[in-house]
């Protein structure tokens, strides 16, 4: 697609994760990390979380520090049953 608003899924996931972090940045500190992780666990389908982990492995991935800090609380999807 040609126009500039059409991002790749990867760009979108980074954007979405950072948006979630954006909200939790303003919440009390101790709740923020768990808040981000729980939100992603609750609402992101496994393949989205897998993609997020792949993004986390990259340098300069553009993810908010809070997302990176929350990563250890985000559930790693198991192998998806066929």
């Amino acid at each position, binding site marked *: *697609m040609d*126009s*500039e*608003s*059409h*991002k790749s*899924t990867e760009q*979108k996931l980074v954007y*979405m994760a950072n*948006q*979630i972090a*954006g*909200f939790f*940045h*303003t*919440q*009390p500190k101790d709740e923020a990390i768990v808040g981000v992780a729980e*939100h992603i*666990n*609750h*609402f*992101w*389908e*496994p*393949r*989205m979380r897998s993609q997020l982990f792949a993004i986390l492995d990259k340098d300069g991935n553009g993810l908010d520090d809070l997302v990176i800090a929350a990563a250890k609380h985000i559930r790693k*999807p198991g192998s*998806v*049953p*066929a």
Partner: protein
Amino acid sequence: MSLIHEIDYGTPASRSEKLVTLTIDGNEVTVPEGTSIMRAAMEAGIEVPKLCATDMVDAFGSCRLCLVEIEGRGGTPASCTTPAMPGLVVHTQTSRLKDIRKGVMELYISDHPLDCLTCAANGDCQLQDMAGAVGLRDVRYGYEGENHVFARAGTVANDQWLPKDESNPYFTYDPSKCIVCSLCVRACEEVQGTFALTIQGRGFDSRVAAGPHDSFVESECVSCGACVQACPTATLTEKSVIEIGQPEHSMVTTCAYCGVGCSFKAEMRGEELVRMVPWKDGKANRGHSCVKGRFAYGYATHKDRILNPMIREKISDPWREVSWDEAYKHVASEFRRIQYQYGRNSVGGITSSRCTNEETYLVQKLVRAGLGNNNVDTCARVCHSPTGYGLKQTFGTSAGTQDFDSVEHTDVVMIIGANPTDGHPVFASRLKKRLRKGAKLIIVDPRRIDLVRSPHIEAAYHLPLRPGTNVAVVTSLAHVIITEGLFDERFIRERCDWDEFQDWAAFVSSPEHSPEATQQISGVDPQMLRQAARLFATGGNGSIYYGLGVTEHSQGSTTVMAIANLAMATGNIGRQGVGVNPLRGQNNVQGSCDMGSFPHELPGYRHISDESTRDIFDKLWGVKLQDEPGLRIPNMLDAAVDGSFKGLYVQGEDILQSDPDTKHVAAGLAAMECVVVHDLFLNETANYAHVFLPGSTFLEKDGTFTNAERRINRVRKVMSPLNGYADWEVTQNLAKAMGLDWNYTHPSQIMDEVALTTPSFAGVSYELLEREGSVQWPCNEKAPLGTPIMHIDGFARGKGKFIRTEYVATDERTGPRFPLLLTTGRILSQYNVGAQTRRTDNVVWHEEDRLEIHPHDAEQRGLRDGDWVKVASRSGETTLRALITDRVSPGVVYTTFHHPSTQANVITTDFSDWATNCPEYKVTAVQVAVSNGPSDWQVKYDEQARQSRRIAATLDAAE
């Protein structure tokens, strides 16, 4: 089956708790103080003759027919305007009364046509009934005198005669039959609140008029039908009744348009619908209606409806009609093939917020139990998903807190991002009634909606904020309430978590949340904001009503939480007249959410990761449910573009037209291998479909809808489905083709399954609905008749939770290339993507979408009213005609999205709410410029749509 006749008590009920006893025709009657003698008599079963009274409007006392005699009092007072008093002895039939009434009727009839046999109201005419009731046998005056009946007197034209006004598409006004009882004028004022009608002239010259020189269709009339319903003669008559005749039976059912969920009597002759008449016992609408529910049902029998299943291999092929069996088998084998090839999670479904609870429940069951994943979503994704999330976090329940009756007890109403007179008209009428009686109104909206100022209504404050700055404004309202000490400490200490409150109070109190600081962001005058906050906190019962102007933003969920904070801080939760009230868009969007349509939760808002909940369904359905959330609609489309999502079953939803960033939706759909559209019409999404399953209308099936007040209303089948099957039957047959052993024979059995598995619905059954008319969930052992008002003694989650709400600007920003902000909305006569209303005569009021632009912005661009303009955003561009108006502020433009050719969603972006992915429809940075006509994209799209709707001619030769 017979025609439902509702009792008309003549005057409205009195709310007084004090009772008075009087004697009417020898019967002792006890009624609340303030009840009219007419009503008291009717309650005793005595019908006093009347022509100008109905219990929908206040007594007027003009027809002189309802006279009575009272012992010890002189004269013959009108029973409609005389209140019942203790000890009165009333007689409704005496020789004196008989003489007077007969004399009055004689005068009426002397100026009325005697064409009863050919009159449309024959059999449903109060004038005819009253002539019978008083025993009128003769008119001594003759019919030759001055009159309104005949066009000519001999060869001379009769100046008093006026021709029929047939300009409204749905009803006619025949002045020759008018008795000037004023019922229509009063219904327009008191019930609808539009004040379009008036009585022109005096004495014998008096007549009903829709404005000074206007025909009905050109007037302020909003075609709600209240006047037609009130008219005691054939003066105002539905065109359908003129054409078909009087109905012979009727059934109570629920409107399939907006989330108000009005109850109607579908009045029938055989299987032909004669008219829809609002039902007085309907608890959402209390006997009122709007133009859509009352009149715009013609789409149900429109020639565009597709009645046979169709399939095609490629979306560039023409459609081929097939048998239902072939269609089911094809879908089943395609979905199985795709799952085998691409994995179990490569397919999914979308439930419909227009279909019944039972149908929605089945679609999510098909996805979870049949396809074995949780890839199910619904159109609430693009409207009120932030409501579900925000209210769950703060209160513990994903729904509004009140019933609509609550508005009658409110003192201060705050409306945020909603336009009730257009989007939720019947609620708006009920609200306006309360406002005319003195409640105050605060409006937070970028646009000057009708409620800001219209006849007999004026908002105390209108805060015209910049689109996208709700959080800043609502947090500032809280700032004022906290810093000025206007909060309700007792309520907060009792009901909410005090520590969380203190944290939040400190947060909102900081100077950067003061109205003076947020003015920079929102453009709202700080003084006015302060006054609005004070009024809301101190003006008595404060209620908040909000719409998609709150939810459809990057910070939609945050605004919902900010609204909940505001209600808790002012103690406005848990009783009549207060509360947080989302005005939900579609007839059953509340229900579709309740029924487990979201990919992360099972029916009753229970998260899919909860093992004990899954266990209930595992056992009942004999499957092992996945414990992971599925894909939401935008995620499905992303996955489709990425190649991991290949098949979709869409019931009653047009994602290509209604979802944002049309090009991305189209790319997602085009990447799929099997798209199944189950709908009434070949909608826009069907352009990308491989299988089309014909759907049925709300008139053709049994079921329930749940409206914005959590009210479960019955939908009743009044005609056979033209396509042969109700939608629940189609889903069931599809499930069977996939090997599922489903054997529902009636939707009541599906509701029984919902009750069995879902605690908040445990008490719901068709038998209960039959008995009670409707119930509001939660309905269970604790609340056997449902719950009109929630959180009465405490919040569903325990303690109410205050949450910090920091304003985060959307990344959709104006700049040199796109300097204006586009926001979107609806208009009264059209509904959403218009699939239904565009196929009715409602198009006379809105034949195209227009771009509202401020005179200042128009002048800068050299635009004149009505010019074709190009609207361009980062996503795309479209063209439509301009409407120059100061309803929008400079810098803001506005349009509706009812017509597919407008393609407003070509310009909307893929920005969405941080918590729910609800798209940011309400803010798009755009540029507007003159244009010559449709854009290349529009031309290309039209051609593609035309190609894609081709249906191959069926071979009629024998094989």
